[in-house]
Structures are given as structure tokens and as C-alpha cells.
């Protein structure tokens, strides 16, 4: 019998559990992301957007409002997919019902992947909700390449879901979960070009620093997929996104399989 991974009934039951959990809490897990993104679109797009001009990239996107939507989607995807796995695992650890899963015939890898897919699906549902909302409230909103848009959203959801699992494994308190959100994701996302183009930075040094931010590339990749443009396809953004997804998945699954901070 394969000791590492099997697509067994148990695997799908755990996956179903993860999806049911966040869907049953949709007022906390889906709606807030849509509302906050809608507010950003209204406040920054409609109200302030017209005053932000003189940038070719914004003009190419069809205006500031349409420019920020991919960034808002990515911000929501990162936040929700990370929150899903980290909080789900933390709750199971904290309330000790994780033991119900650890005593089953599921391998550590299978448990990890079920958690990660659950988190990724939450990220994708959030992204889809924001896209639907954008069609409703953002004039001129359209998606240039649906396939690549889906691919980027899926990869980034997966990557941050895996990172959430990693933090959930390591975390001993809810503080540890919050530290990543407040001190890592929020600055990196904000500095990753959600609300502005890197070309707006006058300082070349700051532009170079921004290029070191992986979230910049993830947002950039999605923006290129969503907004019609004549630029050649950027493999770098895709490679960076895929690499992070792979690295976080391997580390999280390995630690989970070894029982790091989960088993005595």
C-alpha cells in the first residue's frame, strides 16, 4: 500500500470537511473580502481614481479603477487562503480535535494537501466573487485572458494556503498567525503594487527593491492576464508564483508528516 499519497475516500472526506467549514462560516470567510474589495473599488476607483493620472501604465489599463482590481483580487486571495489553513489548523490544534484526524489512516502528506486545497478553494471563491462584483460596479471591467487569470489565482491561492499551513503547524498561539498577516503580508502586499504602478516610483533604488518583493510579481502576473495589453507573456511572474507554491507545499507537508509541533 502506498504510504505517502492515495486519493482515498478519507482524503475527500477531509477535503469536504475543510470546504464545508469555511462555507458554513461564509459571513466571516467570503462576504467580508467582497465588501472590502467593493469599498476599495468605490473609494479608490470611483472617488479618487480620476485624480490619479499622468502614468502610462494606468492609462493602458483603462484608468486607475481597472488598474487596482487585479491587485485587490490578489490581496484578498493571499489573505483568505492564508487565513483558512492557518486558522483551521490552529483551531484543530488548540481545541485538540486534530487528534481525530491524526489517528486515521491518512498520511501526513494527504492531510496537508487536503488542508491546502481547502484553503486554495477559499481563495479562488473570494477571487471569483470580487470578479463578479467588479463586473457589476466597475465600468469597463473585462478579463483579457480567463485561463491565465484562473491559473494565477489558483497558484497564488495554493501558495499562501500552503504558507498558512506552515504557519499553522509552527504557531503556538493566535498571535503567531496574526504576526504574519500584520507584519509580513500587509506590508508586502501594499508595497507590491496593489494601488500603484512601480513606474510611479521616482527613485530607481526603490524600484529595484520592489522587484525583490514576490507579491509584486504575483500581482503583476495577474494584472497582465486580466488587463488587455500588447506586452509579451511574462514567464518570470509565473515561475516565481509556482516556485513559492512548490516550496511552501514541500516544507509544510514535510513538517506535517514528521509531526513537527503536532505530535509529541
Amino acid at each position: 500500500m502506498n504510504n505517502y499519497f492515495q486519493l482515498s475516500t478519507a482524503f475527500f472526506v477531509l477535503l469536504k470537511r475543510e470546504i464545508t467549514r469555511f462555507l458554513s462560516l461564509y459571513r466571516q470567510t467570503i462576504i467580508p473580502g467582497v465588501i472590502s474589495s467593493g469599498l476599495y473599488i468605490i473609494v479608490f476607483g470611483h472617488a479618487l481614481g480620476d485624480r490619479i493620472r499622468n502614468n502610462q501604465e494606468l492609462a493602458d489599463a483603462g484608468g486607475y479603477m481597472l488598474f487596482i482590481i487585479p491587485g485587490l483580487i490578489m490581496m484578498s486571495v493571499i489573505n483568505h487562503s492564508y487565513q483558512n489553513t492557518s486558522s483551521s489548523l490552529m483551531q484543530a490544534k488548540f481545541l485538540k480535535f486534530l487528534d481525530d484526524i491524526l489517528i486515521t489512516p491518512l498520511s501526513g502528506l494527504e492531510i496537508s494537501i487536503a488542508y491546502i486545497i481547502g484553503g486554495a478553494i477559499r481563495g479562488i471563491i473570494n477571487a471569483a466573487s470580487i470578479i463578479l462584483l467588479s463586473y457589476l460596479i466597475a465600468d469597463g471591467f473585462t478579463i483579457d485572458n480567463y485561463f491565465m487569470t484562473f491559473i494565477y489565482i489558483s497558484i497564488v491561492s495554493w501558495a499562501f494556503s500552503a504558507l498558512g499551513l506552515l504557519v499553522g503547524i509552527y504557531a503556538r498561539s493566535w498571535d503567531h498567525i496574526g504576526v504574519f498577516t500584520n507584519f509580513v503580508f500587509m506590508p508586502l502586499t501594499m508595497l507590491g503594487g496593489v494601488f500603484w504602478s512601480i513606474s510611479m516610483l521616482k527613485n530607481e533604488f526603490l524600484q529595484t527593491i520592489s522587484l525583490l518583493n514576490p507579491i509584486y510579481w504575483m500581482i503583476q502576473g495577474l494584472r497582465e492576464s486580466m488587463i488587455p495589453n500588447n506586452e509579451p507573456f511574462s514567464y518570470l511572474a509565473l515561475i516565481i508564483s509556482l516556485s513559492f507554491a512548490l516550496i511552501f507545499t514541500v516544507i509544510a507537508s514535510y513538517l506535517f508528516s514528521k509531526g513537527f509541533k503536532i505530535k509529541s
Partner: protein
Amino acid sequence: MNAVEINNLLKIYDNKFKALNEINLCIPKGSFFGLLGPNGAGKTTTIGILTGLVNKTSGSAKIFGYDTVDNFREARTMIGLSPQELNFDVFFTIEELLTLQAGYFNKDIKEAKARALEMLEYFNLTDKRKSKARELSGGMKRRVQIAKAFIHDPPLIILDEPTAGVDIELRYQLWDFLKEQNKNGKTILLTTHYIEEAEKLCDQIAIINEGNIIANGKTEDLISSMGKNHITIETNLDDNTNIEDFKWKYSINKNKLVIETNNPDSDIIEIIEFMKQKSIPINKIRSEQSTLEEIFINLTNKNE
């Protein structure tokens, strides 16, 4: 075949605490086995290693011949665990909890649901099936916990302090249920602080202390071999009387003749015959046997 086979099992925690000191233990299939020991003796660590909750340091553990590491899928499928602490997935009703738990053991959705309803009915929880575990009383939570252990119908049930904090009525109900399950072929491994419970339910017992198995065997054999059994006869003999040809070890104190024996029930007839022949009057006679609790206290204190 043994339901559980533990060989040289060693567990040293990260803080260097040696919880299990290369223990060896066999639990025969079909037995009702009691694992007794004071707090921190190594009971929960042993259970943890068998169920995959604790990583062993060295040695091996097998469930019905399946290694708990190399063949963990088969080994874990054979086990139903009812842990001591009452912890439940907070997002689901107890019906959903039981259905999920059956699903985690590869029962398809139809079978899992049917089994969950069956367990709910068996444990008299049908009318609470739409309640979350936190809404239930302590006794009901304990019943859900035990139902979870039985949900996938495993041949080995491990119960860690199943009657801790439950009232007498429920305790007796659980005892009857467990005895019936054992009679139907389930192997049961029980840890308990109530020695009386182990004495009543278990046909075999091991006592663990400071990570070592210090006694192991059939319950009645343990009591007869390790207990201090004696027959007390109230008579008119003086304290320093020497009873000739009396083959048992004895002492006399204030006209009470206390005879040590390993088999009080069978020896008592012979002793009465002997006293008759020697014309020693018997005013009162009683046979006393150590309880498992006395043996447990004696053994675990000796080890400290």
C-alpha cells in the same frame, strides 16, 4: 494472534523525559486488557504511539501484525480510540461529527451516515443528533466520544479513562456495553484510575510505572500471586503457641491466628480439618484476599 505486540518500545521526549523504558507487552486478541498506572506512568504515551499521536524513539509496536509506522494505514484502521479529554470538532453537529469520523476511516458517505445513525441510537443520542457537542452534558459528550471510537467498527478499541467524571449510572451502562462488545469479539484496551473498574472488567492487566511494566498477567493470577492472602481464625491459642506439623506460615496475636496462603479458598478446608484433629477450637473464621487496588498501591509505591 496478538491484537497488540509491543517490543522494546522506548520513548524519550524532547525535554529528555523517558516516558517508556523499552517496554514489552502483548495484548491477546479478544481480551479485555487493563493498562494501569499512576499519573505520568506512560499509559497515554503507549496509547499515543499505538494510535499515531506520538512518535516513538525506538522499538516497535504492531496492531494485529501491522507495524504502526511501516503499515500505519492498516494498523490505524484496526483501532478505535476514545481519548481521555473530551475534544470535538466545533463546527459540526454530533451526527456530522460521527459521519465525518467514519469517512476518515474510508467508509463511503452512505455507509458512514447509516453507521452514525446506528451509533446515535445505540448511545441514546438520536434526539440530540442536530446539536453541537458543546451543547451536550458531560455524560452525553462521553457517549459521543465512545461512539466515535466504535464508528468504523474496528477490532481493537482503546479507551483512555472512559468513565472519568461520569455518574454511577452511566458508568454501569458503559461497563455493560463494553462487556457486551468484548463478548462479541472486540479486543479492548482500557486505562483507568478506578482499579475496581479494571478488576471487574479486565481479564488481563498490566501495571506500568515510571515507564516500566512492573506486573502483567491474568487478573485473577495477579491477585492470587501478588496479593497478600490470609485466613484469620479467632481461637483460644496463646500468642507464643507453637502449632506442630502446621504447614502454613502463621502468627498468633491476641487469640487471633493469622495464616498466610496463596490459595485461601482451597486451603481453608484443609486448615479446618487440621484444627479439628488437633482439637483447637475455632470461634470465628474468615478468608481475606488482597484487592487489585492493594496490589496496585503496593507495587507502585515500592517502585517510587
